[in-house]
Every structure is written in C-alpha cells, then in structure tokens.
C-alpha cells in the first residue's frame, strides 16, 4: 500500500472510537425506526441518521465534565457520551427502566451522569439554558464548557438572539452548534430565513461564528477542539454551523415528500460513516477487519438494547406522583443506580454556598464608572 503524502495527526484509537460511536448511533436509530413501525415506540421520534458526525466529533473533542444539551433530536449525543443504549431504548419504549422512567420519551433523554442535560421539545428552548449552565461555570470559576445543539429552524427563535447577546456580553464559555440539516420539518431554511447562513448571525453579537462541514467527523472534531480552547481561555461563546443532512424524514411520521429523491441520493454520497472508514484505511489507521469487528459488536449491543427495552416493565402507577415537586431532603435519582444497581461515582457535585467564593467581576466597576464620567454622570 502506498503511504499517504502527509501522516495523519490522529491515532488509530481515536478514529476507531469515532467510528464505533457513529456506527452505534446509526444502528440504534435504524432499529428505533423499525421498532416505531412495529408500534413499540410512539409519539414523535426524530432520527439522527446522516447527522452522526455532528455529535461524535465534538464529543471526542471536549472533556467528560463538560455540559451538553440538545433539542428533541437527541438520541445521538447521549449514546456518544456513553449512555447505556438499553436504557435509552427503554425510554423510547416508555418503560420504567428508561433514563427518565419512561416519563420523557424520545424527545427528552437526560443522562446527568454523562453530563447530558436533556432533549427539549420546544424549538429553541434549550438555548438560554445552555448560557445559564455556562454562567454557572463562570460564576464558580470552573474550567468547563457547555455544548448546546439546536436546529437551523431554531435559529429564527427570539430566544437565540436574546441569549447570544448575553453570552457574548458576559463572555460565557458556551459552544453553540447549529445542526443545519437544511429543513425545519418540511420548510427549507432558505424559504424562511433572510440570512440562511446561520453562522453569520454571530457577527451581530460580536461573537465568533464559523461554518463547518458537518458530514466530516474530523472537521467537527477540529472545530470544537479549537472552540473549546477559545471558551476556556475566557474569550466568550462560539457559534458553529454544522452543515449536515438528515437522510430520513423530520420524524417517523414524515415521508419527506417536500424534497426530491435525487437530492437525498446526492446527499447520501456524503455519508460520514464510510467517509471516516475510507480515511482511516487510506492512512493505515485501521483495516477492514477492525471495522467489521466493530460493526458486529455494535449490532450485538443494539440487539441487546432492544431486547432489554422490550422485556422491561412499564413504570409503576405510583410514578405518576413522583418527580413533579422535590420534597425536602429528597435526593436526585441516579438512573443507572436505580435500574442496573451500578454504583454511580461521577455524579456532578458543587461547592456549598458557604464554601463557594465568587470572584468574578461580571461588570467591572471602574469601567462602569468611567462610562458614567464620559456621559457626564456622577454616582
């Protein structure tokens, strides 16, 4: 085999990990779609097929303790962060062994142990939350970033504009990743947006904004590595527009008649999974046998996940009366402990209000006073 002109900067280990995670999402979603048609999954079920690179690249580029949250197209990120596939599938099935005891379903996956702070069903509703989580990190002087996903259509929500303004003004360590799959349900983004290149909107808030090839996991990885370093250095938020495509309809209920077969076929040629495999093989960082082994293992893992979900009981009716109001002294639920009996050790914990020293000067006084003086005011 011919050696590539430039050696790849990536380890075989990293490439195979990324491959495994993307393939896991693909396989999981294919099986979820199938289970939906069998009537095992109900409600809205939004598949991630085609967009795998947008979740996996960033997740490999950040730290375990970094926060993440997303919209309702939310199976991919937790799977890539290490959530138990069986418990995610059980949530889709509405079973008591799901991450939220079957109370949230497909649109509301939460796995706090793996720092996945949820899927949200109101378009754009998670965008302010992410700034608040980043605010908390800044407030406690932690070295942590928040990664927040949202769709192209969500970019037209007021919540985004209000939040970008604050995040930039207060230099909050948050990375916004717009998953531009070119449609909001059946509406092409260009039909409803005066500026369809979402990344350009960052400029209005003096915020860093860039487009990224969302069909290339390595490009996503590099973009987020760089953005995370920027955030951790205190330079403020970053908006990345990941240009991607969903191969399936908006949700399982959508036959996607608003776009041509041709368009979908063209886009499928950019499938991020074979793309990574080709890259690895070309660079001598993986052989066919490696990928076949991974695929076999993942298939078995997803089969087991479906079986686990299918064999799990529905939540007990007593669950109706839990998790609405936190009673005094009531602890938080740790799902893997509750369901699998696994000791969960990396649950987030924070300094008490007596230990915490807030040193952040969000609006330095001298600066404010100077501005006053200039305006001829006295305090």
């Amino acid at each position, binding site marked *: 085999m011919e050696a590539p002109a430039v050696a790849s900067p990536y380890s075989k280990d990293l490439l195979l990990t990324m491959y495994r995670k993307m393939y896991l999402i693909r396989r999981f979603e294919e099986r979820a779609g199938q289970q939906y048609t069998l009537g095992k999954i109900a409600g809205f079920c939004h598949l991630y097929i085609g967009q795998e690179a947008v979740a996996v690249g960033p997740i490999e580029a950040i730290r375990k303790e970094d926060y993440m949250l997303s919209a309702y197209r939310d199976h991919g990120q937790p799977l890539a962060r290490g959530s138990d596939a069986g418990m995610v599938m059980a949530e889709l099935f509405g079973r008591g062994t799901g991450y939220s005891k079957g109370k949230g379903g497909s649109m509301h996956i939460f796995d706090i142990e793996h720092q996945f702070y949820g899927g949200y069903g109101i378009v754009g509703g998670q965008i302010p*939350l992410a700034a608040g989580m980043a605010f908390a990190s800044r407030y406690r002087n932690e070295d942590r970033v928040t990664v927040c996903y949202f769709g192209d259509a969500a970019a037209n929500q007021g*919540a985004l504009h209000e939040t970008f303004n604050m995040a930039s003004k207060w230099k909050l360590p948050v990375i916004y990743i717009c998953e531009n799959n070119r449609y909001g349900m059946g509406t092409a983004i260009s039909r409803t947006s005066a500026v369809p290149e979402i990344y350009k909107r960052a400029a209005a808030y003096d915020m860093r904004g860039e487009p990224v090839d969302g069909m290339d996991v390595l490009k996503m990885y590099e973009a987020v590595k760089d953005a995370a370093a920027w955030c951790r250095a205190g330079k403020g938020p970053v908006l990345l527009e990941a240009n991607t495509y969903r191969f399936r309809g908006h949700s399982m209920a959508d036959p996607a008649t608003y776009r041509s077969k041709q368009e979908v076929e063209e886009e499928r040629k950019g499938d991020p999974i074979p793309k990574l495999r080709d890259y690895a093989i070309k660079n001598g960082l993986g052989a066919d046998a490696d990928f076949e082994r991974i695929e076999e293992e993942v298939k078995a893992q997803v089969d087991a996940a479906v079986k686990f979900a299918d064999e799990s009981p529905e939540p007990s009716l007593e669950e109706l009366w839990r998790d609405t109001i936190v009673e005094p002294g009531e602890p938080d639920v740790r799902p893997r402990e509750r369901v699998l009996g696994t000791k969960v050790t990396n649950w987030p914990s924070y300094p008490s209000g007596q230990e915490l020293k807030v040193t952040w*000067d969000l609006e330095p006084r001298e600066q404010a006073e100077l501005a006053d003086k200039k305006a001829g005011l006295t305090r």
Partner: protein
Amino acid sequence: MPELMYREALNQALAEEMERDANVFLIGEEVGRYNGAFKVSQGLLDKFGSARIIDAPISELGFGGMSVGAAMVGLRPVVEMMTWNFAILAMDQIVNNAAKLRHMSGGQLRCPIVFRGPGGAGGRLSSQHSQALESNYAHFPGLKVIAPATPADAKGMLKAAIRDENPVIMFEGERLYALKGEVPEGEHVVPLGKADVKREGTDVTVITWSRMYYFCMQAAEELAKEGISVEVLDLRTLRPLDEEAILASVRKTNRAVIVEEGWALAGIGASVVDIIQSKAFDELDAPVERVTGLDVNMSYAANLENATQPDAPKIIAAVKKVLYRQGA
C-alpha cells in the same frame, strides 16, 4: 419589633440569604446600579458585586431561561421581573422548562429558582400594566406560587422560597412596596403552603391574598361596627392551596366570600369554591360568594379604574349577601 416597608423586608430577605449562601444571585432589569425599579434591591450591588447582582438586558425570555439553566447545575437564582406583565415573555421558560425539568429528567434534575416581581394593578397604568396574573401560574404542576400581603410574610416567604428546591413564583405588589408593618429580625422563615388567619371571626370567612387583603381587613372593621364578626384568611400560597386551613375556617363560620383582584373565569377563587363545595357542602349556610375584578380590561381613567377592582364596599355587600342581610 422593627417596622419596615414591604420593599425593605424583601431587601432584608435577599441580603440575608445572599450572605448565607453564595450560590444565590439576583438578576433582572435595573436591579444593580439603578437599585431596582421599585428599590427592592437597594444597596445590594455595592454589597455583593456585579456577578451576584446582575443588570440584565430587556430579554425576559433570555435571562429567565438562562437562570433556569444556572439552577439546573447548582446555583440558586432569584430572577426579578420588573412586573409580571413583562414576565409573560418568559412564560415558555418558566412553564415548559422550570416546571417540567424534574419530570422530564425522571428525577435527575432539580430547579431551585425564584421568579419574583410585582403583580396586580399599579395605579393609573391602563391595561397592559395592570393585571393580576397569578392564576395563570397556579395552573401548572411543578411550580409553587406565593403572594404575601404583609411585610413580615414578604420577608419570611422570600427566604423560604430561596431555600426551596423547586421553582417558586412570587407575586409582590406595586402598591404594597411602601406599606409598613412589623418584621421579625434575622431568621424569620414562613413555610410555603400555609395560609394564615389574619383576623379571627365567627360569622363569615373572607378568603383572600396579596393586596386585596387590605380591603378585606377594612371591610371587616366596618362590619364589626354592625356586629358582624369576619374571619380573614390570607392564603399567602396559591399553589399548593392550604385546603386544611380553608376547610377549618369555613367549617367554623359556615359562610365564605373569596376576594380576588384578577378576573373571575378560571381564577384562583373558582378553585377555592370547588374545594369548599366538594368537601364542606353540608356545612354551608349559604352559597359561596366571589368578589373579583370586573371582566374587562383595566382603564386609565380614575373612576373606571376604581370601578374595575374589588374594594371594601363590594366586599361588605358580598358578606351581607351570604348572611342574607341585604338591604339591612
């Protein structure tokens, strides 16, 4: 006991809780350098600095939601809404996120946050600025809703709200801020969910909260002169309702009048009537009466504004009605 204005009582509660717990911060429009649109946060910026007393842009949805996010990861935000009329813009974050996080996460997350600000008629401000909106929020499971009438309750309930592990919606009142009353110093915490008999009586129970409380007390004074003994029950918390206190008082007096600043349809009073009719029907000597704001938008003109709201004469008439003493 020192006498404080309602706004000073709130200020004291905020200062004490922020002193006690560095996770507590206050965010809102004009809370910092302006010292608060209604001066509730007077002096707090100097005391706690700009990371804990935060002047927000006019983005209720944005800073409301941002604060919910901060509460999800361990902070305890107090969000000042300049008035509840403006908080309507933040309703998505309050209702769809704050109230549902515990549920959607299957008990993994909590959201200890206080949204507070003045509700009710401000005085000659017309319809957009004069609304009693508490019944909207009382509708939602996952929230607690409070509306203290007195300075002492304002302090004690704000302290309890900040310490609560759930989202708490607090209705203050533009026309309550300057009212004075005795306020216990230091550790004075009034538990949420408990109504308070503010005046004992035997003939009729008048149930109310927030600013209407003062009209009820005025009516009770007047009626006492006619030999009518009115019990005034201040609900203080509107979600959850203190059913026990409501029923105990009605079982004693056998008659009830509910006084509410807001509109009648889908009002809190309707739920109170429901509790009474379903659990104490046999003990009633008369149908329950409601005194509410008229079913119209609030006008600017002084006479129209006054006529729109409940007042002591309307309450007196309702009390006489349930006593079958009309025209007496």
